[in-house]
């Protein structure tokens, strides 16, 4: 198939793994930063629309907003508990909403497919590989914000700082050390002293696991969204090089089932990210006496 100039392998590398800047002299202004900015504006607009004329009897968009927030708050409260929920909720809800909207934004027509072509110029469609089987360099105008590791690491870093603050506030430094290294399960006496080295070792492993949480959180999200982009791109271009009508129909029909899959993956990944963050907060802010019960 590749010998004929079409096939999935030719388009797999067409989606760059990195977000790309539009202007050579403004490195930070990448296509994913642009999408993040659009998502921010979208969320700000929605927020203003829902809460500008807030009333005790909700109408219109306020109703929907209340439904979402109440549902999310219930979920967060169920995990982190009544005491920590008011402080943890804003960040966890923002993470969920921002990630889900960013993920779904990547499914909008034109995102990742309209941009600057090396051969075809600005505002062009992504082009098929050339006769040598190489994809020409193409910079999409819009790239999902969560398909950029800078964004996913950024969210994870903000979460870890908030996590550290909440943990410090709830159990303090000594409490955290005890929570991490002290023998659990109420073991005392001779057996307890035997178990101390084991729990110290477990504590060290726990610290390493905590240190790598932001990496696992960010890489999981980034990997899934980037893989989704690549999958849609590959499915859309799988029949490139055949008859134009077949290629056109293929570019519409073949990615279609995967769009539904990506809608699911979008909300699933946002849920996983927010849920894990909530669980991390719950684990470290639970007092040992509560934990033992």
């Amino acid at each position, binding site marked *: 198939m590749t010998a004929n100039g079409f096939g999935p392998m030719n388009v797999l590398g067409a989606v760059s793994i990195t977000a790309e800047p539009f202007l050579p002299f403004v490195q*930070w202004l990448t296509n994913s930063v642009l999408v993040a900015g659009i998502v921010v504006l979208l969320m700000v607009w929605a927020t203003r629309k829902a809460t500008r004329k807030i009333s005790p009897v909700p109408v219109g968009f306020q109703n929907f907003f209340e439904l979402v927030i109440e549902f999310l708050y219930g979920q967060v409260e169920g995990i982190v508990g009544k005491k920590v929920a008011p402080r943890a*909720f804003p960040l966890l809800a923002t993470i969920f909403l921002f990630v889900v909207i960013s993920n779904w934004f990547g499914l909008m027509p034109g995102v990742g497919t309209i941009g600057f072509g090396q051969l075809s110029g600005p505002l062009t469609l992504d082009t098929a590989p050339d006769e040598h089987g190489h994809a020409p360099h193409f910079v999409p105008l819009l790239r999902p914000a969560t398909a950029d590791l800078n964004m996913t690491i950024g969210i994870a870093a903000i979460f870890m700082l908030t996590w550290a603050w909440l943990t410090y506030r709830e159990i303090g430094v000594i409490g955290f050390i005890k929570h991490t290294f002290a023998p659990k399960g109420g073991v005392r006496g001779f057996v307890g002293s035997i178990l101390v080295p084991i729990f110290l070792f477990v504590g060290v492993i726990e610290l390493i696991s905590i*240190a790598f949480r932001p990496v696992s959180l960010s890489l999981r999200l980034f990997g899934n969204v980037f893989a989704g982009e690549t999958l849609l791109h590959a499915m859309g271009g799988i029949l490139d090089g055949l008859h134009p009508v077949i290629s056109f129909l293929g570019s519409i029909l073949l990615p279609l089932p995967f769009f539904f899959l990506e809608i699911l993956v979008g909300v699933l990944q946002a849920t996983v990210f927010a849920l894990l963050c909530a669980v991390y907060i719950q684990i470290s802010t639970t007092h040992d006496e509560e934990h033992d019960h």
Partner: protein
Amino acid sequence: MTAFPFLILAKASEPAGGGIAESLGLHWAKFLAQVLLFLIVYLILKKFAFGPIMAILEDRKNRIAEGEENLKKIAADMEAAEAKQAEIVGEANTRADKMIAEARESAEALAEKKRAEATNEAAGIVAKAREAGELEKNQMLSELKRDFGRLVVDTTSKVTGKVLTGEDQDKINQETAAQLSL
């Protein structure tokens, strides 16, 4: 501690190191731009969405709880009012029964009194009528005796042709009256 993996990535992103971070597109300026954007949306949502919505949800929850409390209070008040009403109605019924009984007793007593008075009055009237009748009868009887005596005297004097003296007349009258009283 949480910065540890970032330090590794940052180290890896240094030009001399190249490697993973560079190939994954990690870059401090891009990272900060994304962090800034996320922080903006976080702060805006916290201030303008979660804050007011949570406040209004809390307010609504309080209102509902207050409404429920009021409802319970109203139900309790209503129950108390119904009990009070039943008590008042019961008391009124008892009092009414008592009043009716008293009225009946009083009416009966009055009727009895009036009946006795009427009986007495009727008896008085009957006695007076009987006395008047007796008196009239006696009067008529004495008039009859007198007229009859006179008639006898007149008849006697006419039959005998003699003028009767006062003494004769009295004697005849007495005899006549004595005969009539028989």
